[in-house]
């Protein structure tokens, strides 16, 4: 069970993602070239240089629900309607964090608590949001003011360590609690309409609609093992040919109902417009099981299930795009659905043909890594959990192949020119090298539950510092079910992103000049909110006047919202070095200064990324994901290796 099951509740409101933006260009990690101008607003596309990293929900309230197949939309239906969804009230809000400046496409929420309040402000439920990255990123917004982030995406995770009020007057909440395992709930939300222009009210904020439902032990936490309808993204991974984006759904075990999540499917015109009218859209099931995506379908080739009421003014806000279809009167659909693919299609023409907007994965087969973002220390191992299905049922005995990929990773993340120019210029690091710093199993076979694992290991030596001015290295793993048609790729965004931390031996007696200053200087450059207002990390005297706070923040676990560094991109060796230094005392009782390093240490030769020149960015495009994506598309376009259809 998941948020696609009943009982479930839907909510809508706003989110804030107050990310900092100087680190959106990897070149600014090169300390000696950094000048204060790079910290100014809108310099080099840095639209929020004093960002705090905070991710929070605001003005979110419950707008709809489903209990036992009954739609709930008013407080008379169930008192849960109108209740407020809030974040923590006894600790800091969550944080939004890129994996790395060279992988900005899997931004994760960390340390967020979610609570539901009754009218008196009492928390009826509270849970910890298991850190999750967005997925299914696409260009959802068609128009916008300058700086608008026109990309939208989805976050799916669970709330765990749930606590519930003793008394629940809401039948829906009562049922939700009873239906869930492991003190957990399933939560999914879609984010869109985000503003990056400091002069508008939406600055650092956007819309959110989402759903909370039961979580059942053994189910994936970050996607639904169900029916996956995917868009044709052969031209661009973020621009679907049919104008609508991926859908996941589930068929009731007795095939009496189909539930689809269309919350991240329809375009919006501008940030506040609501859904764009693209004409009637229907869902149906094919009578055959074609081995290739269809562009059109004849009415005779399928059984229609229903129209999607997405143009109804309250539909999106009351359902978060989760739509149920009652199949009890449609015996044909019920018989086809267990073995035939779903399609989303437009209105049939005179000749009976309709444009296929989305189609379920070929042969109904789908595999997904539940967690797809990993941070790994040298000499450690982690397990990648995969779930394979066919028409929503576990796919047993399936073979999964895993290969190295760069995914969308790499590039600078910034524009063509840096102003003022860097001296010396920073090379854009190559990623994925040395290849032997990580190892992973190249294949796996699913068990009866469709479940398989890949072992991920980091070498004892780690990657070294192949990126020169930036610690750690990025790696990617592509995975695919074997036996699918050549070149077919269900979802090019499905790959594993790995940040392999550099190995760092903690010195017995770390010093400011020898160990701490280079690290702190980099953070001081990139995060002026910290440097200007809390502690100037570039200044020894200032740092030693704030030892208590620094010891506190550097010692917090990664899931704590106040963990330092906020970016969660520092390896344990560096963190332990800092903590040891903060806790050490020289003759004056303060952490030792050491001796200035006469000349900058000769950096290891940097393997710069080959490939095209930097893309030019229009002033309105801002930095961050837009630049990152444009660079990726340019690399993919220039790359002579087979492009379309391959895992990016």
């Amino acid at each position, binding site marked *: 069970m998941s948020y696609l099951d009943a009982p479930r509740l839907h909510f809508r409101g706003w989110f804030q993602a107050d990310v900092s933006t100087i680190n959106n260009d990897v070149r600014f990690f090169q300390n000696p070239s950094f000048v204060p101008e790079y910290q100014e607003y809108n310099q080099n596309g840095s639209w929020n240089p004093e960002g*705090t990293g905070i991710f929070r929900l605001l003005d979110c309230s419950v707008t709809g629900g489903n209990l036992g197949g009954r739609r709930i939309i008013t407080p008379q239906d169930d008192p849960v309607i109108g209740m407020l969804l809030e974040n923590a*009230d*006894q*600790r800091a809000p969550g944080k939004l964090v890129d994996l790395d400046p060279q992988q900005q496409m899997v931004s994760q929420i960390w340390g967020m608590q979610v609570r539901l309040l009754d009218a008196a*402000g009492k928390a009826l439920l509270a849970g910890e949001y298991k850190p999750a990255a967005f997925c299914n990123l696409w260009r959802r917004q068609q128009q916008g003011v300058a700086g608008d982030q026109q990309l939208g995406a989805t976050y799916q995770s669970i709330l765990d360590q749930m606590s519930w009020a003793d008394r629940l007057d809401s039948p829906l909440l009562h049922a939700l609690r009873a239906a869930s395992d492991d003190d957990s709930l399933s939560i999914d939300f879609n984010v869109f309409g985000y503003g990056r222009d400091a002069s508008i*009210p939406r600055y650092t904020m956007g819309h959110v609609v989402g759903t909370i439902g039961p979580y059942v032990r053994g189910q994936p936490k970050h996607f639904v093992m169900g029916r996956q309808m995917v868009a044709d993204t052969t031209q661009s991974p973020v621009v679907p040919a049919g104008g609508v984006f991926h859908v996941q759904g589930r068929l009731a075990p007795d095939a009496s109902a189909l539930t689809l999540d269309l919350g991240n499917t329809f375009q919006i015109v501008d940030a506040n417009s609501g859904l764009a009218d693209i004409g009637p859209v229907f869902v149906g099931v094919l009578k055959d099981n074609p081995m290739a995506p269809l562009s059109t379908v004849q009415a005779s080739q399928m059984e229609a299930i229903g129209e999607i009421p997405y143009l109804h003014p309250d539909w999106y806000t009351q359902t978060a795009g989760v739509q149920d279809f009652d199949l009890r009167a449609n015996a044909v659909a019920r018989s086809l659905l267990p073995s035939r693919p779903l399609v989303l299609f437009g209105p049939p023409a005179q000749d009976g043909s309709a444009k296929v907007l989305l189609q379920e994965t070929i042969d109904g087969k789908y595999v997904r890594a539940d967690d797809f973002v990993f941070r790994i220390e040298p000499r450690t191992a982690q397990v990648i959990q995969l779930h394979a299905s066919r028409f929503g049922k576990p796919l047993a005995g399936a073979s999964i192949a895993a290969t190295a990929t760069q995914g969308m990773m790499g590039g600078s993340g910034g524009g063509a020119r840096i102003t003022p120019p860097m001296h010396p210029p920073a090379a854009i690091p190559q990623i994925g090298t040395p290849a032997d710093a990580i190892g992973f199993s190249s294949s796996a076979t699913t068990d009866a539950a469709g479940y398989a694992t890949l072992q991920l290991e980091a070498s004892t030596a780690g990657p070294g510092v192949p990126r020169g001015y930036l610690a750690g290295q990025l790696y990617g793993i592509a995975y695919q079910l074997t036996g699918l048609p050549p070149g077919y790729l269900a979802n090019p965004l499905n790959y594993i992103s790995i940040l392999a931390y550099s190995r760092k031996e903690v010195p017995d007696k770390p010093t400011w000049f020898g160990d701490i200053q280079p690290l702190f200087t980099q953070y001081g450059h990139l995060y002026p909110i910290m440097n200007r*207002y809390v502690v100037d990390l570039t200044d020894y005297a200032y740092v030693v006047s704030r030892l208590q706070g620094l010891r*506190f923040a550097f010692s917090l676990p990664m899931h704590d919202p*106040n963990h330092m560094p906020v970016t969660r991109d520092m390896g344990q060796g560096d963190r332990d070095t800092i903590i040891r230094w903060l806790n050490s005392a020289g003759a004056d009782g303060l952490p030792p200064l050491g001796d200035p390093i006469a000349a900058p240490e000769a950096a290891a030769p940097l393997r710069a990324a080959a490939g095209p020149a930097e893309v030019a960015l229009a002033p309105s495009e801002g930095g961050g994901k837009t630049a990152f994506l444009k660079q990726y598309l340019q690399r993919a376009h220039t790359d002579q290796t087979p492009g379309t259809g391959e895992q990016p």
Partner: protein
Amino acid sequence: MIRLQGKILREIRAATAGPELHKYLQSAIELEHSTIPPYLTAMFSLRPGTNRHISEKIRGVVIQEMLHMTIASNILIAIGGRPAIDRPDFVPKYPGPLPMDVGNLVVGIEAFSKPLLTNVFMAIEQPEDEVPVRTLKLGEAEPEFATIGAFYDAIKEQIMALGPSIFVHTSAPPQVVAENWFPPDKLFVIDSPETACRAIDIIKLEGEGTSTDPFQSPHDPAHFYQFGSIVAGRELIATPDGFAYGGAPIEFDPEGVWPLRANCRIADFLPGTQARTRIEQFAYNYSALLKALHASFNGEPAKLGAAIGLMYDLRVLSVAMMQTPTGVGSGETVGPSFEYVDTQGGMP
């Protein structure tokens, strides 16, 4: 100077059991807390890169007020009470009088200025027996009212009179002793009349100094004189004939202050504006801080870390808020609100 009704002292002296002192310790917690929002606002209003020296001085005072609030809470816990921090009336309404004050002192939430220090902060901290420091002139306290010093003295006397038997929770937890944040000679377990009196003496000394010495420790003037030195623009030093603000200069750059509108309230700003979302976010974060402190002092001492995290967040949240105009062409920016709220919003 904060002036209490004289009957408060009589009531304290009339207490015959520990629980009868609870409400006065709760008042002490509220009073010690009530100075933090105005001081914090003044400190946050100083722009980065300027006025660093002044900022550090105010910060030092704020941290000591946090210590005093903790001490008062521990004494209350020790004699069987429960600090009540997570409720709307814990926070005084600004602008207005501080808890227990029946005088004319109106305390608001304003950006740093020397008149603010002279007229408000120094008035809050004015000692009962002010040590003469040249360049300073302030009015005498009116004798029919009790002072904060007398209030704490009365509590001390009554605790001594009631004796060790009123001490029922003599360990941490439930008391909060945070060695990572406060040295053990400042924050320690209250387990006896003697430790309670020693702790109260720390509050008095750090706030007021002594009747003969304005320094609470070498190089660290008591709060009144700390603020006095900022106003005078020179450090307090001992001179052959007393004390004077004649030490190293304390530079003040008037340009280095955000032009905050005084005493902002959430309702002053329309939903759908940055001003509204930012001030709500600040107030929510401050309320969360009070809730985390309440939990820390009511059996969940591990929540202190979360409270401290929230304090750091307040600092960074103030940054964007204090740069947000209150309206087009106003020339003012949004100041913080310390309203106690349970929800955060601000968008349409």
